[in-house]
C-alpha cells in the first residue's frame, strides 16, 4: 500500500516538474511554476523519507537523524546564501548550486560503488556479470557528476573574477585524451568491478577534465557553459534514477538534461555561436589574430565632458540606453532608472535596447532592470531596438562593448563576426560610458569608439550616471 502511495507521489512530483518548467517559460506564470516545482520536490523528498522500502529486505530507511540534520543544514545554508546574494552575482550562484548537485550525484555513485564492492568481496559466489549494468550506471553517474561539479566550480570562480582564462596550444587535444582515458578506465572497471582503485583514478581524472574543460572558455561564453553543465547534472541525476529504479529522479533528470541541452543551444543561437566553437574556446584561440588587426585602426577617440553629455541628453527627443556588463558590475541599474525618470520628466522619450546576451547571462539584464523597477514596456528587444535607433538622437551605451561592436558585421576575421549586434550607429549621436579603453570579453578592440559619431565618457557606470542625473537636474 505504502509503495503505491509512493509511486503516486513520484508521479505527482514528476508532473509538477513538467508543469513548473512549462510555466517557467512564460513571464506571467513563471513564479507560480517555480513554486509548483518546489512543492513537487518537497513531497517527493518527504515521500521518500517516510515511505521508501528496500525491495530486497523490505526494510524502510534508517539513520533519520543523519538525514534530517543534512536536510536542515542544507536548507538553512541554501536559503541564507540565496537570499543574501546580490542580483548581479546571480549567475555564479546558479553555477555554484549546480556544482553542488553534481557533487551530490558523484558522492552517491562513490557510496553505491563501495557498497557493491563490499557485496562482491563478501560473496565470491556472486556473479560479476549480474552487477555489470549497475557498475556502468554508477560509473557514468560518477563521471558526469564530477565533471559537472569541477566545471561549475571553475565557472563560479571565473564569474567571480577569481580565476582567469587559461589556454594553451593543444589543450583541446589533451582534453580529448583525458576523456578517452576516463572512458577506457570506465570500461576496464565495468569488466572487473573488483578493481576498486580504478574508480578513484576515474574520479581524479574527471575532476581534472572538468577543470580543463571550462578553463579556456571566455567569460562571455560562460552562461552557455553553465547551462551545459546544468544539463550534465540533470543527466547525472537520471543515472541515479536508473540506479535506484526511481521514477522521479529519472524524469526530473532527463527533463533537465533535455531542457538544459536545448536551452544551451538556444543561447548559442542568440550569440550566433556554435556549441563546438564555444567548447573548443575559439575566443581564446583567435585573440592574438584579432589583436593584430585591431591595432590597425588608430582613429582618435573623442571624449565628452559630463556637462556636455548631460546637455545632449536633456535636449534630445529620443534617447536609447544600451545597458551592458559594465552596468551590471557597477550595480548601476537603480541610478540608470533614475536617469531615465529624470529625462522622461523633461519630456525626453527614453527606452532601453536589450541585446539578447546583455549582462552576464541571457535575460540577466532584464532581471536587473526589473529589480530597479524599470517598466517592462521600456525594454526593447534587439530587432525592435535596431528599428528605433534610426529615430534616436542620442544612444547612451553603458558598459556594453562586444554587443555594439560593428566588427561583428564588417570584419570577417573578427572572432565575433556574425554575432547579431545592436546598430547603435544608426542613431545621430552615441555616447559610450566605459571605465577604460580596455576591450570587452571577446578581447577585441571596438571600432565604434573611434567613429566620428561616438564620444566617450569614461568612469564607473554608477558614478557617471549619478553625476549625469545631478547635472540634468541642475540644468
Amino acid at each position, binding site marked *: 500500500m505504502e509503495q503505491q502511495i509512493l509511486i503516486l507521489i513520484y508521479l505527482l512530483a514528476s508532473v509538477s516538474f*513538467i508543469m513548473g*518548467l*512549462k510555466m*517557467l517559460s512564460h513571464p506571467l506564470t*513563471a*513564479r507560480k511554476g*517555480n513554486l509548483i*516545482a*518546489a512543492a513537487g*520536490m518537497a513531497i*517527493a*523528498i518527504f515521500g521518500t523519507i517516510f515511505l*521508501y522500502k528496500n525491495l530486497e529486505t523490505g526494510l524502510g*530507511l534508517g*539513520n*533519520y537523524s*543523519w*538525514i534530517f540534520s*543534512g536536510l536542515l543544514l*542544507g536548507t538553512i545554508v*541554501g*536559503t541564507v546564501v*540565496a*537570499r543574501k*546574494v546580490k*542580483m548581479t552575482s546571480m549567475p555564479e*550562484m546558479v553555477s555554484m*548550486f*549546480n556544482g553542488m*548537485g553534481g*557533487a*551530490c550525484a558523484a*558522492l552517491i555513485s562513490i557510496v*553505491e560503488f563501495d*557498497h557493491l564492492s563490499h557485496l562482491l568481496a563478501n560473496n565470491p559466489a556472486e556473479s560479476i556479470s549480474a552487477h555489470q549494468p549497475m557498475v556502468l550506471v554508477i560509473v557514468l553517474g560518477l563521471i558526469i557528476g564530477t565533471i559537472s561539479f569541477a566545471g561549475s566550480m571553475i565557472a563560479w570562480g571565473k564569474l567571480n573574477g577569481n580565476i582567469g582564462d587559461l589556454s594553451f596550444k593543444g589543450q583541446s587535444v589533451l582534453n580529448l585524451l583525458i576523456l578517452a582515458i576516463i572512458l577506457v578506465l570506465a570500461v576496464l572497471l565495468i569488466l572487473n568491478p573488483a578493481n576498486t582503485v580504478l574508480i578513484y583514478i576515474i574520479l581524479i581524472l574527471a575532476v581534472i577534465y572538468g577543470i580543463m574543460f571550462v578553463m579556456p572558455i571566455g567569460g562571455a561564453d560562460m*552562461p552557455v557553459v553553465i547551462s551545459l553543465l546544468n544539463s550534465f547534472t540533470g543527466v*547525472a541525476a*537520471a543515472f541515479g534514477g536508473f540506479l*535506484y529504479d526511481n521514477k*522521479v*529522479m*529519472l524524469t*526530473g533528470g*532527463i*527533463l*533537465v*538534461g*533535455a*531542457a538544459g541541452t536545448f*536551452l544551451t543551444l*538556444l*543561447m548559442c543561437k542568440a550569440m550566433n555561436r556554435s556549441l563546438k566553437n564555444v567548447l573548443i574556446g575559439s575566443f581564446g584561440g583567435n585573440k592574438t589574430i584579432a589583436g593584430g588587426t585591431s591595432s590597425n585602426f588608430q582613429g582618435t577617440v573623442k571624449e565628452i565632458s559630463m556637462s556636455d553629455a548631460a546637455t545632449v541628453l536633456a535636449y534630445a527627443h529620443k534617447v536609447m540606453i544600451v545597458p551592458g556588463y559594465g552596468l551590471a558590475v557597477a550595480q548601476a541599474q537603480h541610478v540608470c532608472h533614475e536617469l531615465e525618470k529624470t529625462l522622461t520628466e523633461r519630456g525626453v522619450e527614453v527606452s532601453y535596447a536589450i541585446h539578447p546576451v546583455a549582462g552576464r547571462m*541571457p*535575460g540577466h539584464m532584464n*532581471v536587473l532592470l*526589473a*529589480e530597479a*523597477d524599470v*517598466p*517592462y514596456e521600456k525594454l526593447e528587444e534587439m530587432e525592435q531596438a535596431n528599428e528605433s535607433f534610426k529615430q534616436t538622437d542620442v544612444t547612451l551605451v553603458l558598459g556594453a562593448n562586444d554587443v555594439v561592436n560593428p566588427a561583428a558585421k564588417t570584419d570577417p576575421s573578427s572572432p565575433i563576426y556574425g554575432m547579431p549586434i545592436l546598430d547603435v550607429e544608426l542613431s545621430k549621436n552615441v555616447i559610450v560610458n566605459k571605465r577604460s579603453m580596455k576591450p570587452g570579453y571577446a578581447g577585441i578592440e571596438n571600432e565604434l569608439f573611434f567613429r566620428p559619431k561616438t564620444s566617450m565618457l569614461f568612469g564607473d557606470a554608477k558614478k557617471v550616471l549619478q553625476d549625469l542625473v545631478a547635472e540634468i537636474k541642475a540644468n
Partner: protein
Amino acid sequence: MILMIFVGIEVIGRVPSVLHTPLMSGANAIHGVVIIGAIIVMGKAEPGNYLALTLGFLAVFLGTLNVVGGFVVTDRMLEMFKSKKKGN
C-alpha cells in the same frame, strides 16, 4: 525516457530570451532531485559504515543546498518581474 526528452524540448521550445536566466535557475533546482538518491543511500547505510554515512550526509547536504538554493534564487528573480507588473 525518450518521452521525457521530447517533453523537455517541447517545454523549452518557445521561451523568450528574457526568461533564460530564471529558467536555467529553475531547471537547476529541479535536477536537485538527486537528493532523493542521497536520502536513499543514507537510509540504507548500516549504522557502522562511516564512509557511507559521511559521504551520504555530505550528499544530502549538498543536494539540499542545490534544491533549496535553486528554488529560492529563482523565486527572487521572478519576484522582481512580478512586483513591477503590480506597480503599473
